[in-house]
């Protein structure tokens, strides 16, 4: 008899959390010439499968059978400290509904589907752990993070104090240095993004605090504390390494997925040419 996935997860939940080194190895970190802070410039990418599911997840067949192994679900260990996301019971029901709606399986734009499936902006922190590289640009008092996925990008306000003037998909990022850790405080998220393909979500009340700690030239430890009192019983945290893309001549490429979903969204609405 198949165990429901949720039961399986409970059974292994507390076991294998990912552990990350947090001690900086100071001599090996590149530092900027202008303020001696860690120099995060470069192209980075995670190796985690958190985009499938932040919590422990087994591999599995593709939900679209004919894609065979191309669409199969990858296995991965939870990136959540403590293993599970602390949902309020009523919010968990919505998460489970999201799971059912994630892949509509029929043509047409469906706003209940996984936003990633629709090529919608992934928000924070999901942009970090998509299977796409991103590039950090850092200069005196300025920072941008540009993601390969769609047109996702964030202006990071160094020592920023302004409040988000409006909600947005990628939020409003105010950053400061805490020693050698870059802390980015993200508010103004619009509640329409998910954390992963498994339907994990939050609302407009979401508050994310990211920490980027460089531990050597090619590794950053990324942590994000998630807070949304309307969904979760308490704040919770994810963490994973960011790996520098060290290939010579590596660069972000184009993944303008709005084009890739046109047939999906609009195929049924096309009219024949006149005459």
């Amino acid at each position, binding site marked *: 008899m198949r165990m429901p996935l949720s039961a399986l997860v409970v059974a292994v939940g507390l076991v294998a959390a990912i552990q990350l080194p947090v001690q900086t190895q100071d001599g090996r970190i590149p530092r900027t010439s*202008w303020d001696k802070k860690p120099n995060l410039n470069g192209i980075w990418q995670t190796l985690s499968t958190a985009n499938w599911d932040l919590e422990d997840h087994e591999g599995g067949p593709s939900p679209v059978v004919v894609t065979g192994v191309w669409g199969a679900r990858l296995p991965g260990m939870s990136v959540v400290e403590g293993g599970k996301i602390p949902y309020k019971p009523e919010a968990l029901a919505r998460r489970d509904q999201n799971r059912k709606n994630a892949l509509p399986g029929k043509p047409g734009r469906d706003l209940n589907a996984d936003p990633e499936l629709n090529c919608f902006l992934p928000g924070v922190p999901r942009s970090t752990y998509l299977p796409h590289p991103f590039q950090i640009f850092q200069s005196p008092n300025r920072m941008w993070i540009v993601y390969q996925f*769609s*047109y996702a990008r964030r202006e990071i306000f160094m020592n920023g104090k302004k409040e988000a003037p409006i909600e947005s998909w990628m939020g409003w990022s105010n950053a400061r240095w805490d020693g050698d850790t870059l802390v980015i405080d993200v508010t103004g998220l619009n509640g329409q993004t998910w954390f992963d393909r498994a339907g994990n979500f939050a609302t407009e009340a979401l508050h994310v605090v990211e920490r980027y700690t460089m531990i050597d030239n090619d590794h950053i430890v990324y942590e994000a504390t998630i807070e949304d009192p309307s969904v979760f019983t308490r704040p919770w945290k994810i963490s994973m390494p960011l790996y520098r893309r060290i290939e010579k001549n590596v*660069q972000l490429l*184009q993944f*303008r997925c*709005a084009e890739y979903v046109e047939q999906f969204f609009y195929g049924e609405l096309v*009219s024949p040419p006149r005459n």
Partner: protein
Amino acid sequence: MRHRFLIAAGSLVVVGVMMWLADAAVAGQAPGGTTTFKVPASTYAPPRTPWGDPDLQGVWDNHTTVPMQRPANLSGKKTFTDAELAARARTSGDNDPLCNKNDERCAKATVAELDRLDAYNGFWTPQTFVSDNRTALIEDPPDGRIPPLTPEALAIQQAYLRAHPATEPSAAVIEIRHWEDYDLAERCIAAQVPTTTMGYNSAQYLMQSPGWVMLAHERLNTRIIPLDGRPHLGGTMGGWIGDSRGHWEGNTLVVETTGYTNKQSGGSVGAFADAGIPFGNFHVVEHFVPVGPNRIHYYVTISDPQTWTRPWTFMQPWEKDRVLSYNDNVGATKAEPYQMYEYACHEGNNAMGNSLRGTVQARQRAASRPADAESTKSLIGKTEADIRAMYGNPVTIAGPRWQYSTANGILQFFAFFENGKVVLVRPDDIRLTEVVPNR
């Protein structure tokens, strides 16, 4: 064949600057023609970044009314004098559509001027422009006109316009029946690179880091430009916005872009190349020439011997951290240097679905319209007295346009008069009995 580059459907035209591309029959020049034009060197030395590159970082805007091509009636005239500029600039009374104030302009409006699907009112568009006294953006050829298309390119363009009639701006009814009838910006894929003015949301944040320049355009595009001399990607890996490589020549940033995809596109907002011109063979060189602490002269040289008979160059001045202002009775409630905001275009793109569904519905409605004799179409040719007899005095008169309400209270009925007779009605396919008499 004339190609009209009108302002998009529904907008007013400013100052008689309606651009007509010169007859695109091929001129006598052989393809691959050359030019001796040289981009002027920088006249200003910007401060440097800590790693020694000229520092051009900031939010740059290019808002302008200078047209790409020199109008025929200004042929030979490269710049306006200060007096001429002052005369051309008229302070705006308001941003409302033509007949909102029912004044002189409205009384003299033509039927065509009123029968137009306007965009939203001018509240949305900033009214201060980057200072520029030129009559055209094109610097080379010296006549300020885009060079002729080659015969091959013309044929490709004509075939494209036949296949995508919706993008022809002069079309009376614009039908989007397939998503490719919309241009790439409307599809929320990209804006043409490089871009020209967009009217709003047109700024770019120029960011630098050691070995890189990044240009975040408010609308859609982020360009990432390595400066380390690495080779181009090759093929069409540059996709919609091309693959760029940059280097410094003195204080000037020079960027070369190739590797565009050949996918056709409509003219697109901020386009420098028109509908139906494939990008695949483009070679674009941009020069970002600092001329002042807050001013760059941005030159773009486009070469494609398969498309144009010779390379051509346009220039737009850019200004940094501009404070925008608006010319209406609202004013700016808060003036601050340009801050870019997120432009989540695809996420909010309801227009595409609406347009495609609109075509489906409109075709169905056309098939089931009432017979002409029973519909408002039969009012064409009637006199003012006839209309009054049927419906009473109009609820509103705006120049040549009489307005009545209809049964649902929301849909309006317009009858347009010329020489005392109805020449046009909107809608023309509802029953006569649906128009509500105004007694």
